[in-house]
C-alpha cells in the first residue's frame, strides 16, 4: 500500500499541497482527478522522492522510499525519460542494465502490441508513440506499483484506446496503480478508487463502485457535487 500522510509542500510561499492524505492499494487502480495545476504531478514526484516535501510522510508498504524501492515502484511521467538519440532497443538495454526487475520478454510483448519497432529512434517518434514507449519502460518492470502522469493527455484517439486496453490486461493486474487525469471519460469503468483534488487539497476520496451502488451516482456526478460545493 502507498500511504500519503498529511503531506504539505510549498514552492516559495505558495502552498501547492495542503495536508494531503490518501492511500492507494496494491491490486487497485487509484485515480487522482483535478484540473491542471492542482498538485497531481507534484504528489507523484513527492512519492518518488523527485521533489522534497515540507511536512508529512509517504510510506510504500510501510517504509519510506529508499534506493531499493525503485525496484518496487516506478513512475511514468508525461515526458519520455530516455535520451532522445537512443533507439528503443538502446533504451531497453539501459533499463536491463540498471534494473533487476526489468522484464525483457514483457517489453518485447508490449512493443509488438503497440506495433513499434526496436530500431525506432526516440527523437523521431510521434507524440502518441513516445507516450507508448514511455509506458513500456514503466510497465516492463516487474514492480508492485506504477504511477502514471496523464497517460491519455494530448494523444490521438487510437493510441488512447490502445493504452486503455493495457489497463484491463495482465500487465496491470495485481499491481497498484496511481494515475492522474483531468478528464475521466476514457477510464471511468477502469478505476477502483477516486481521489478528487483541488488547489492542493483532497476534497474527497471514494470507491467508484461503492458510490454507484449506494448512491446511484457516476464518478462525474460526484465530481460535479464536490466541485460545485
Amino acid at each position: 500500500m502507498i500511504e500519503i500522510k498529511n503531506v504539505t509542500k510549498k514552492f516559495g510561499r505558495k502552498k501547492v499541497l495542503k495536508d494531503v492524505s490518501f492511500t492507494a492499494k496494491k491490486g487497485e487502480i487509484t485515480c487522482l482527478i483535478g484540473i491542471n495545476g492542482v498538485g497531481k504531478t507534484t504528489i507523484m514526484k513527492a512519492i518518488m522522492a523527485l521533489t522534497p516535501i515540507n511536512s508529512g510522510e509517504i510510506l510504500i508498504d510501510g517504509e519510506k522510499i529508499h534506493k531499493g524501492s525503485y525496484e518496487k515502484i516506478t513512475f511514468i511521467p508525461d515526458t519520455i525519460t530516455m535520451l532522445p538519440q537512443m533507439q528503443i532497443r538502446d533504451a531497453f538495454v539501459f533499463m536491463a542494465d540498471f534494473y533487476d526487475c526489468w522484464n525483457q520478454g514483457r517489453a518485447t510483448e508490449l512493443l509488438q502490441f503497440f506495433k513499434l519497432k526496436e530500431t525506432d529512434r526516440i527523437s523521431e517518434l510521434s507524440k502518441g508513440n513516445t507516450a507508448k514507449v514511455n509506458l513500456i519502460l514503466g510497465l516492463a518492470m516487474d514492480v508492485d506499483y506504477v504511477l502514471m502522469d496523464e497517460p491519455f493527455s494530448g494523444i490521438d484517439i487510437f493510441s488512447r484506446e490502445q493504452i486503455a486496453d493495457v489497463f484491463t490486461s495482465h500487465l496491470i493486474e495485481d499491481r497498484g496503480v496511481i494515475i492522474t487525469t483531468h478528464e475521466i471519460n476514457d477510464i471511468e469503468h477502469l478505476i477502483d478508487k477516486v481521489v478528487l483534488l483541488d488547489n492542493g487539497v483532497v476534497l474527497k476520496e471514494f470507491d467508484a463502485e461503492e458510490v454507484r451502488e449506494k448512491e446511484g451516482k457516476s464518478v462525474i456526478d460526484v465530481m460535479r457535487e464536490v466541485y460545485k460545493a
Partner: protein
Amino acid sequence: MKRYLKLVNFEFNRFFKLYIVLIGITILSQIIGVIVESRAYLNRANELIYKELMLKSEFIEQYGTMSFATISRSLWFLGPIVVCGVTLLIYVFFIWYRDWLGKNTFGYRLLMLPTARMNVYVAKATTILLYVLGLVALQLLLLPVESQVLQWMVPSEFRTDLSVNEITNFNDLAILFPNTLIEFVLYYGAGMAAVFIIFTAILFERSFRIKGIIYGFLYCVVSLLLFFAPLFINEFILGNYFYLIEMFFIELLAGILVLSCAIWTGNFLIKNKIRV
C-alpha cells in the same frame, strides 16, 4: 559498485563523440603546428642565408635553433589545449544540465535508479576526471611523435632536441604534467576538488533554483575561504609562523576538509533536496 561502473561507462559514452572530435583537433592542430612553425623557421633561414648570405652560425646566433620550445608557445600547440580545457570546463556544467533542461527529462530516470544517488554524482565526476586524464595522456603520447616530425622537418644543425621530460617542464605545461607524485596529487587533487565544489553548487541551484544560485555562489565562496584560510592566517596573523612543509600539510588537510564538505553536501542535496 556494479551500477556505479555502469553509470561511469554510460556517462563516458554520452560525451564520447565530442571527445573524439577534441582528440582529432588536438592531433591535427599540433602536428600541423609543428610543420608550419618548422617551415616558417626554415623559410627565414633560407631567406637570410641564401639571399642575404648570412652565415649559418650567424643565423643561429641571432635567431636561435629550432626546438620544441618555439612550437610549444605557438597557437597551433596551445590553442587545442585551451579548447579542450574550456570544453571540459563547460561540460562540468553541461553534464548535469543536459539531464534537466529541454524536453527530455533524463534526470527523472537517473534519480529513479535503484542505486544510491551519490553514485550518479560520483560517476559524473569520475567521467570528467577520466576525460581530463585521457587528454593529458594523449598529449604525453603526442609529444614524442611531434618531436619526431620536428626532426624530419628541420636539419640537425638548426635544431636543439628536447626530451619529453624537458618539454613538459616548460612553464606553460608544467601544471598539466607535474614532475613529482606530490605535485600530481596536489594539482589534480585541487582540480578534482574544484569539480566537486562546482557540482555541489550546481546541485544547490537544481534544488533551490533561483535562490539556489545565491546559495551555490555563497557555498563556493565559503569553500574557497576555507581552503585559503590557513595561508591567510599564517601570512597576516601569525607572521609566517609555520615552515613551508608544515603549511603544505595544513593546506592538504584544508583541501581534504573542503572536498569532504563538497561531497557530504552534494550527497545531502541529491538525496533529499533535488527537484526535477
